[in-house]
């Protein structure tokens, strides 16, 4: 039996004057899910979260929280809570007073409030002595944890996040991403997270929605979005990628400029065939591309010239210019480093099980 989704959007439209920010969006989020909405700036993700929290009114459509329609309910009457991009910690209150704020609004007794605040400090791995601290005395990471504790004190049905990690440095962001994921597991709450960073989304989420120009382009688990994107936009948004324009041939095979196809067996078996005359995009991620020695073979072969090599830390990235004038990206682990001179001719190969075909262009 499919359980009822905790949050359901039906044909949600948001217009600002003549500009339509959201074009009739549908969405279902499951109970206890870590759901991330990713998109470039201007894709409508911020508009989306403001509607979900209740800080803006939608133009058309419905938002349901379980079996209650909430789109006309103002933010202060919704049982959801958000961690803001700026964190919005109250500078005139101590850490403890910030965490207790939602409890105070509900008229909880001071002793109960304090007990809960100390519990939350423990949960967020902050020392209890922080209860007395001023917000200005906390570091960036500590402020994040205080903001989380305050949102959890509210005990929301859904916890929303509006890019709360975007202002932090790389290392701290990486640590907090993992902490958020573990916090999600420990609290069992539904998290809905907005970000422009694909890495952040991949590390933490159960499911990811890719937004583009006010619509969802694809909603799926991270592996699916990374390995089987529905469009060029998703493929390019989710990290480095190599794309080839291809066209179906009479025998249901593929033909592409500058790419030799030697698929062992029928391309249809791999789901990478097109009807005659139909165009598509063949995608392969850089880590699946091999440098071939003269004797080796592969399902797809591309010839080119090594143009550049970049050290990315644990991986090495190569740029290869193909005979068709296209630039391809190849990535190898440092231990599998390819030794070649810049300007030398190379042969690249990859296999049918690692490619994905996007129909249409």
């Amino acid at each position: 039996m499919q359980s009822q989704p905790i949050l359901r959007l039906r044909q949600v439209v948001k217009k600002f004057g003549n500009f339509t920010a959201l074009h009739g969006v549908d969405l279902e989020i499951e109970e206890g899910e870590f759901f991330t909405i990713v998109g470039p700036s201007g894709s409508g993700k911020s508009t989306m979260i403001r509607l979900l929290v209740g800080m803006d009114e939608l133009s058309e459509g419905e938002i349901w929280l379980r079996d209650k329609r909430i789109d006309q309910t103002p933010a202060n009457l919704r049982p959801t809570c958000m961690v803001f991009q700026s964190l919005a910690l109250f500078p005139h209150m101590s850490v403890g007073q910030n965490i207790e704020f939602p409890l105070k609004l509900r008229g909880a007794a001071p002793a109960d409030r304090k007990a809960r605040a100390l519990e939350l400090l423990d949960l967020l791995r902050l020392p209890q002595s922080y209860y007395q601290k001023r917000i200005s005395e906390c570091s960036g990471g500590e402020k994040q944890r205080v903001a989380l504790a305050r949102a959890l004190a509210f005990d929301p049905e859904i916890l929303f996040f509006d890019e709360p990690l975007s202002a932090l440095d790389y290392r701290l962001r990486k640590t907090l991403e993992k902490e958020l994921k573990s916090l999600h597991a420990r609290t069992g709450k539904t998290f809905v997270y907005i970000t422009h960073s694909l890495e952040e989304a991949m590390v933490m989420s159960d499911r990811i929605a890719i937004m583009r120009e006010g619509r969802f382009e694809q909603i799926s688990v991270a592996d699916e979005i990374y390995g089987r994107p529905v469009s060029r936009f998703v493929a390019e948004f989710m990290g480095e990628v190599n794309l080839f324009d291809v066209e179906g041939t009479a025998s249901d095979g593929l033909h592409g400029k500058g790419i030799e196809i030697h698929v062992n067996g029928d391309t249809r078996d791999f789901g990478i065939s097109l009807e005659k005359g139909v165009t598509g995009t063949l995608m392969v991620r850089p880590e699946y591309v091999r440098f071939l020695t003269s004797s080796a073979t592969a399902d797809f072969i591309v010839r080119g010239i090594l143009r550049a090599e970049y050290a990315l830390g644990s991986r090495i990235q190569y740029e290869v210019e193909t005979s068709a004038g296209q630039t391809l990206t190849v990535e190898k682990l440092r231990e599998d480093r390819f030794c070649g001179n810049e300007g030398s001719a190379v042969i690249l190969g990859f296999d049918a099980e690692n490619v994905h075909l996007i129909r249409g262009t």
Partner: protein
Amino acid sequence: MNPSRSTRIALYVYGIATIFFLYVPLLSVGFASVSKARYLSFPIKRYSTKWYGDALQSETVRDLLVTSLKVAVIVTVISMVVAFFGALAFARYNWRYRTLFQKLILLPIFFPQTVLGLALLMWFNSVGIIPTWKTAIVAHLVWIAPIATLIVAIRAYSFDPALEEAARDMGASTMTILREITLPLLMPGIISAGLFAFLLSWGNFPLSLFTTGADSTLPEWLYAKMVSGYSPLVPTLGVMSVVGSFLLILLAFSLNWLIRSVRESRSAEN
């Protein structure tokens, strides 16, 4: 950063000029107030605190102080309230006539005070209001409330709107947000606005001259006595007025300090 040689010289010149043009004249009033002579003359031959005693016993002086204080205190309180809401309209909320409001509010400040005072007097007369210290309050407010509003608005501009949104998101009503978030965060600005309002009203001469009618404030009396019938109480009252202002500044600082320590002790109790 260490200032360059020329910057240092400029700073010295500036400091000396300040002392010379601001504090030395003030000191001369101070000396005059403790001179035993009935008329202003330097050097002072005999010193005495007689005029201070006289001033404290004089009924005229008491009336003057009471009138000035009444006007200044009421102007301060009203200015603080108006400035709080005015600053929200000025800096926080987007509404249709906001830019117009922002420009209009500056007008009274650019208006010469004498012209403003005259205009208000004529207006009071034409609507049949007899000028007293109460009409002076209105006149002071026309000029001072916009200044106070600007002072609070500066504070309101540096205010993250997400703070109010976060409070609302956690269930706070508009009134609660105002009481728990907006007001405490703007309070330092409101206190400085109050301080300015008091000092500007306390020392104001041109507006009072036109609009107090038969009543008289301290600056008005000082002027009147200089023009005709000099009183040795003039420098004495001048000094008392300055001392009053200083006491007020001290009060404002201790009030700020008090608010902070109350907040800290409250958070310690919880």
